[in-house]
């Protein structure tokens, strides 16, 4: 891969096709953990790590196991099992290394398993690179950049939500309603990237 292709992939998955704002993947942790910046950051790092690793591993699994044995219809089951075991690993690691972060992530950490962004990037890699060679580097990078895009979205939202605490919001809009409206406004800004070509 040339540097230009890498930059194009980066812009594409972080800004143009941001997982949250244009693909709607991973919304549950997005609205759940974005209340304050430290947990948003922790969740973001966990997702970047899991997404990168999951892309790499599902690539190998698909290319060397599912395709040769003609088992591609099993991809849903196979991918979800790989991702679930990875999340388990990350959880054990965080519990040992960063107990405070582990506590603040709470329930959302095991929920990365059911984070559609992680499984989504694995499926996207397959469908997107089907025509081309479905390369290892490309898939892994796409996973990594998509994770960065997710983290960016989390950080923007957590910054806004910290300020929203002090805003006067109509009673009915409190809670998730205002979060979604805010997400819509950010999404309009991200729509501005959609004409972007490299």
């Amino acid at each position: 891969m040339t540097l230009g292709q890498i930059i194009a992939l980066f812009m594409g998955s972080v800004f143009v096709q941001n997982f949250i704002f244009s693909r709607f993947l991973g919304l549950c942790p997005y609205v759940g953990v974005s209340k304050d910046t430290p947990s948003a950051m922790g969740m973001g790092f966990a997702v970047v790590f899991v997404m990168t690793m999951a892309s790499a591993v599902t690539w190998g699994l698909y290319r060397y196991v599912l395709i040769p044995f003609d088992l591609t219809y099993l991809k849903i089951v196979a991918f979800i099992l790989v991702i679930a075991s990875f999340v388990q690993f990350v959880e054990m690691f965080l519990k040992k290394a960063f107990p405070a972060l582990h506590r603040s992530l709470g329930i959302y950490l095991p929920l990365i398993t059911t984070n559609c962004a992680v499984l989504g990037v694995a499926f996207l890699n397959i469908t997107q690179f089907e025509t081309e060679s479905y390369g290892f580097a490309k898939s892994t990078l796409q996973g990594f950049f998509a994770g960065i895009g997710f983290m960016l979205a989390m950080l923007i939202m957590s910054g806004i939500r910290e300020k929203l605490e002090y805003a006067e919001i109509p009673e009915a809009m409190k809670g998730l309603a205002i979060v979604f409206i805010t997400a819509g406004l950010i999404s309009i800004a991200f729509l501005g990237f959609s004409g972007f070509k490299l």
Partner: protein
Amino acid sequence: MGQEETNNTGYFKELSKGFIRENPIFILCLGLCPTLAVSNLVENAFGMGIAFFFVLLCSNITISLVQKLIPDEVRIPCFIVIIAAFVTVASLLMQWLIPDVYARMSLYINLIVVNCIILGRAEAFASKNNVFRSALDAVGMGVGFTASLFIISAIREVTGFGTFLGFRLIPENIKPITIMILAPGAFFTIGFLMALFNLIRIKKGKVSK
């Protein structure tokens, strides 16, 4: 409706709680990703709703049947594998029956496997209740989900395309609000609908301050 719920022996309650009181999308705020992604056309929303309904019903029934066999420690992986199996079935069936709708949203059909509503119902309900109750719960939740999806997609298609299921509702010369079928429209629609649900709850005095 409130009167009936208390009279019947809880079965109706099990069925109806998914419609409004515990509506998976607007009240529980679960399963939002496919909701927002496929709700730009009513046709897509129906495809998603049916696939979702099928998977939820089958997995709820299966899980409530095998709940005694699954050890507590590994229940989540077991649930996921059961759900994944039914998603594979649904995805293959859709590929065969409605290939053009499937082609548009294959990613989100496959992602039903990680839909929090289905796993949530498996964990919170089907693994603790008998088959009949679990099936009722699945039907209620499935109808609630499909109906919510239908409302969102109807709003977005009418305002964004000026059509409803392909039929033109708003005359050609009135320019549709294109942003409603793009990503931001989805966020706005669900945001305002949630606010509406909250408003209704506040008006009814159900929210204790």
